[in-house]
């Protein structure tokens, strides 16, 4: 038996029945890291001795409590884990040691999960291929000529390469779902407000959310249960009664109304991706779902609105990186020169571009025309979703218009931004969305199908995506 092929659920059950030990589980994943990660490069840092020691400690416990007892999980490097280097893929944070745990990390530890390492990402989560990491590129484990997607590319690659049982990433405009789609795994962006952002290095605070990347839908439901909930340290988290997402998985989906977005056909979508969407829909119809065409009239404005709002928030959030209290320390005779030197040396090109766009959009004389206009368009997009959800329970669309691309294939920033056209609208509206692997293209690259739910209806999208996942082998070519 290869432990690393087991799901989170199976692994926990086997550990609790003492069929396998936590140490064996951790060793199995560490072995894959040893053998594969020189090539894949999913991890920025690991600590084998510490991880093994934790595993041994857990094996000594007679009461094996916790939904993820002994499960080795990978954490995106923009999430603070006490005592580890947290760089967010940036040189400006090289050497920064987290002095505290993010709330999500605290919850993982409370459920006895084991943090196996910190994963590579686009610098400050700004990118769609992980090529913007200041350290190195991560390769797509399905085909190493291709990017793993981004910005949570390391997290997605670690799960696809079986170097971690599951991983956590952050999603500001698609950074969990796009790499999940490119690497052939499951990725969930929860509803904004479901998961605490405390300890997540802020990029776009009104858009950022932490979520799981997993081998299957059931594992995603298990991990979501671990991390969700109100947190006094994040005033945007919502106090809702605890929900056991696992109860939704096996419900009958008969009679569910699914929306197909009319405007998708205005975009250039790869042939095989369209085919996969058609197959997915017919699968769901075969299981008794009803399909309706709905409209998100402002869909094409989501991308420009996002690329004003996210950089505006980033320009403010990233002003804290000044070299005084942690991270890279520049030179300069006076304070201004010191700040400028630190930041100019410390930030990569894409981060500089976004800081400048955001600074411009918020600057005197341009605020109304750019930031305010974009925030109004955002309102219209959220209203479009609200209207669509009056008639349907969930939306079904591709996660990305194409499968994974090659390194250096996207020549301009705008071309790269376009990778997120089908994921960004959900961040602007705040709704939950899951990407599940569904078929492959003629190059053998995975295709992701996205199921989008109403605000705080993660259970609903777990239900539909689980049904789709279970059916696909028998119903799809």
């Amino acid at each position, binding site marked *: 038996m290869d432990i690393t092929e087991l799901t989170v659920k199976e692994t926990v059950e086997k550990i609790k029945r003492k069929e396998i030990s936590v140490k064996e589980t951790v060793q199995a994943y560490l072995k894959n890291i040893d053998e594969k990660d020189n090539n894949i490069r999913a991890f920025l840092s690991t600590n084998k001795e510490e991880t093994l020691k934790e595993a041994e400690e857990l094996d000594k416990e007679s009461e094996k409590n916790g939904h993820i007892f002994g499960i080795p999980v990978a954490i995106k490097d923009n999430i603070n884990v006490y005592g580890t280097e947290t760089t967010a893929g940036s040189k400006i944070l090289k050497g920064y040691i987290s002095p505290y745990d993010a709330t999500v990390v605290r919850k993982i530890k409370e459920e006895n999960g084991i943090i196996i390492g910190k994963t590579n990402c686009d610098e400050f989560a700004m990118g769609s291929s992980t090529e913007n990491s200041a350290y190195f590129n991560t390769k797509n484990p399905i085909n190493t000529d291709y990017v793993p997607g981004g910005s949570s590319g390391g997290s997605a690659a670690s799960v696809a390469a079986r170097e971690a049982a599951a991983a956590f990433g952050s999603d500001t405009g698609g950074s969990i779902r796009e790499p999940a789609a490119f690497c052939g795994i499951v990725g969930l962006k929860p509803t904004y407000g479901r998961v605490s952002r405390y300890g997540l290095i802020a990029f776009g605070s009104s858009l950022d959310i932490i979520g799981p990347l997993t081998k299957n839908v059931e594992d995603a439901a298990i991990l979501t249960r671990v991390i969700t909930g109100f947190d006094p340290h994040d005033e945007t988290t919502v106090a809702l009664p605890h929900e056991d997402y696992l109860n939704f998985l096996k419900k009958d989906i008969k009679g569910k109304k699914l929306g197909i977005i009319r405007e998708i056909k205005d975009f250039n979508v790869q042939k095989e991706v369209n085919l996969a969407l058609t197959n997915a829909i017919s699968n769901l119809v075969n299981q008794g779902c009803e399909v309706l065409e709905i409209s998100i009239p402002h869909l094409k404005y989501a991308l420009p609105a996002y690329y*004003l709002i996210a950089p505006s928030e980033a320009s403010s959030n990233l002003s804290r990186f000044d070299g005084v209290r942690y991270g890279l320390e520049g030179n300069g005779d006076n304070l201004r020169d010191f700040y400028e030197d630190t930041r100019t040396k410390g930030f990569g090109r894409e981060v500089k571009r976004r800081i400048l766009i955001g600074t411009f959009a918020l600057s005197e004389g341009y605020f109304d025309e750019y930031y305010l206009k974009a925030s109004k368009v955002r309102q219209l997009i959220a209203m479009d979703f609200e209207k669509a959800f009056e008639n349907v329970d969930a939306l079904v669309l591709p996660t990305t218009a194409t499968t994974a691309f090659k390194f250096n294939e996207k020549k301009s920033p705008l071309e790269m931004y376009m990778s997120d056209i089908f994921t960004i609208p959900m961040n602007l509206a705040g709704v939950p969305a899951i990407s599940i692997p569904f078929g492959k293209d003629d190059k053998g690259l995975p295709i992701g199908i996205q199921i989008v739910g109403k605000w705080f209806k993660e259970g609903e999208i777990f239900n539909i995506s689980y049904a789709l996942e279970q059916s696909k082998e028998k119903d799809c070519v």
Partner: protein
Amino acid sequence: MFDIEKIERLAALKLQGKEKDAIIKDLEEILNYFNILKEVNTENIEPLVYTKGTKLFLRRDETEKGLSLEETEKNRELFGDNFFKVKKIIGE
């Protein structure tokens, strides 16, 4: 259409050489693309900042354990009576 030096100053960045040229070109292209937003009628539409269901609340003003000096020093050596070192600000 934008004053790059002014924006750099506001952002505390100092671009140079080829990087500066490349970034200016990119920004022009990106800002130009944003013009399609002008097509959208946003009259009487309120801007959206925080999405549905999120309400800002005030936390009780209770003291919590903050970072210890020991933790702080892992990231930057403090000096004197536990101060961060900064460049001279006054008397410039």
